[in-house]
């Protein structure tokens, strides 16, 4: 059965429809793969999963197979298994957000995204690893240990959704759900050679997504192909009355856009290269692959212009004030009273609720979470509010205006997704600023709420590791990301003679 795991989700769906394979067989093949490469006992593994639900996934697969044989209505991805980032509530399955403070918590309800996956018949293989409360760019801030990049187990898989990206890159799952607050879907996609999409803010429900920063968080697809992302986006997207920030408008036809793009004609499409997102500090091999990809878009008929977004240089500063401010407020709910960890201060059996709260939050939160809570508390405190948080909100306006002006000159904007390829585990762990710089190119889209996709652009010459190509579109025009992304993917596939992941080294001891 192992041959199935290397197929795309779309191919798996076709094979299910043709009766060539069952959902139970597909699901079992992925569970076998997880057992072989994720946390093998005799060697180092990928460690993409925090929790695997073999029993539940196989039961959901059997139900999908039963619906298929009974001739019941089926979704486009019915029976294709999926992995879900551990930041989304799953009824009856642990949801830790990569934090000790939620160890052992079993949500009593499903996030809307999860409910939609279940309704569409996608068996849920398990929950994927992440930086604690999605704070990080390497998945090293998980309280349960880092995830390893399948391209090189000594390197980071990106973050915060390194688990979802690594699972898909290692063929442990054909599809996964991620969440992107400042790049946590796109940057892991770039460094693992996979596709990641951050939808328009409000395009996918946030109900049941444990909030990091409400005004920035967005769930989206993590896959190996652009078409697979479009198929998954259509399953999870659309209005949800349970999320007051959900957009009450139909999604554009994303699958049609991906198919149109794959046909290879980009005539009449204006592509804007963002001047500010390259140059000093960018890895030369990443830039080379980026420029080659731009050339391929020109070859496909696109018109390329250079655009300037002068305030993007301030995006990181604005983000690292807005995000900690929102996070410090959000994480106040972890108070040891209603759910999650409760730690009593040592030697104080008669401690007050407040003392228990302090001890619990010290024991339950990791370093990065504490850093950001304290930074956010500072930014929101009187005397500093106007100078920091107030200024950051104004810069957010300027960044949105930069996007508006740029989208008058171009239909999509492009840049490398991340400034470098995957770095070594531990390399930037105690240097917060170096870590934050990974999200330089992805943050502006979150601040403005516009959609973005990262598509593999090849391997950087210096280190043979994947680089990503980012495509941004105006709010609600997610279809443009899919059209241009699929066109680039098709051109690159032809050049490579097959998927980029075919060039990844075999994971020791396990053939796929």
């Amino acid at each position, binding site marked *: 059965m192992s041959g199935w795991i290397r197929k795309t989700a779309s191919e798996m769906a076709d094979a299910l429809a043709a009766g060539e394979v069952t959902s139970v067989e597909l699901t079992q093949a992925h569970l076998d793969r997880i057992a072989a490469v994720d946390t093998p006992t005799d060697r180092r593994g990928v460690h993409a999963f925090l929790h695997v639900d073999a029993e539940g996934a196989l039961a959901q697969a059997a139900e999908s197979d039963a619906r298929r044989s009974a001739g019941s209505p089926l979704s486009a991805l019915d029976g294709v298994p999926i992995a879900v980032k551990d930041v989304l509530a799953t009824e009856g399955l642990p949801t830790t957000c990569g934090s000790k403070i939620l160890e052992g918590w079993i949500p009593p309800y499903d996030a809307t995204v999860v409910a939609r996956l279940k309704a569409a018949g996608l068996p849920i293989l398990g929950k994927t690893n992440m930086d604690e409360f999605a704070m990080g760019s390497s998945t090293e801030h998980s309280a349960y240990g880092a995830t390893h990049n399948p391209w090189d187990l000594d390197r980071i898989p990106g973050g915060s959704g390194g688990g979802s990206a690594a699972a898909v890159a290692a063929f442990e799952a054909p599809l996964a759900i991620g969440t992107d607050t400042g790049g946590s879907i796109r940057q892991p996609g770039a460094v693992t050679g996979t596709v990641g999409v951050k939808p328009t803010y*409000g395009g996918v429900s946030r109900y049941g997504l444990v909030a990091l920063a409400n005004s920035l968080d967005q769930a989206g697809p993590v896959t190996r192909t652009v078409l697979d992302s479009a198929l998954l986006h259509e399953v999870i997207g659309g209005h949800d*009355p349970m999320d007051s920030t959900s957009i009450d408008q139909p999604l554009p036809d994303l699958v049609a856009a991906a198919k149109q793009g794959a046909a290879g004609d980009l005539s009449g499409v204006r592509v804007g290269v963002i001047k500010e997102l390259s140059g000093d500090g960018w890895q030369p091999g990443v830039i080379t692959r980026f420029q080659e990809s731009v050339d391929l878009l020109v070859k496909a008929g696109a018109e390329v212009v250079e655009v300037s977004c002068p305030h993007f240089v301030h995006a990181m500063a604005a983000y690292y004030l807005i995000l900690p401010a929102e996070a410090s407020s959000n994480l106040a709910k972890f108070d040891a009273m209603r759910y999650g960890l409760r730690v009593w201060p040592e030697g104080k059996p008669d401690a007050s609720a407040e003392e228990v709260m302090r001890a619990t939050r010290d024991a339950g939160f990791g370093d990065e979470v504490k850093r950001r809570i304290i930074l956010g508390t500072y930014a929101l405190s009187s005397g500093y509010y106007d100078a920091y948080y107030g200024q950051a909100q*104004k810069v957010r306006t300027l960044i949105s205006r930069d996007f508006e002006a740029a989208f008058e000159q171009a239909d999509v904007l492009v840049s490398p997704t991340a400034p470098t390829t995957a770095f070594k585990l531990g390399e930037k762990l105690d240097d917060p600023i170096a870590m934050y710089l990974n999200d330089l190119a992805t943050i502006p889209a979150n601040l403005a709420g516009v959609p973005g996709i990262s598509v593999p652009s090849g391997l950087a010459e210096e280190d043979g590791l994947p680089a990503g190509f980012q495509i941004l579109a105006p709010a609600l025009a997610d279809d443009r990301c899919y059209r241009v992304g699929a066109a680039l993917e098709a051109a690159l596939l032809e050049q490579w003679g097959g998927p980029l992941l075919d060039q990844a080294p075999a994971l020791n001891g396990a053939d796929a």
Partner: protein
Amino acid sequence: MPEITRDEVAHLANLARIDLDDAELDHLAPQLSVILESVASISGVAGEDIPPTSHALPLTNVFREDVVRPSLTPEQALSGAPAVDQQRFSVPRILGEEA
């Protein structure tokens, strides 16, 4: 140049209800100063006339009909509680000794 002193970090940790020990304070204070320094460039970027954006969507006051909808049972709501007593969350004392 903005700088957060060790005492300020201790004060902020207190406001955020996190018991930081001495080693954590020694570690965090210089790191926070470096982070603040790198975001301080933001002051003066936007003029007085620029309105703030708190949210990417121009949405305000999203209402729903005031009708009863399905919700969690008491058992479900209490299922993750560290301690439960008589179908309620049981918490440590919330008042001082003398109260």
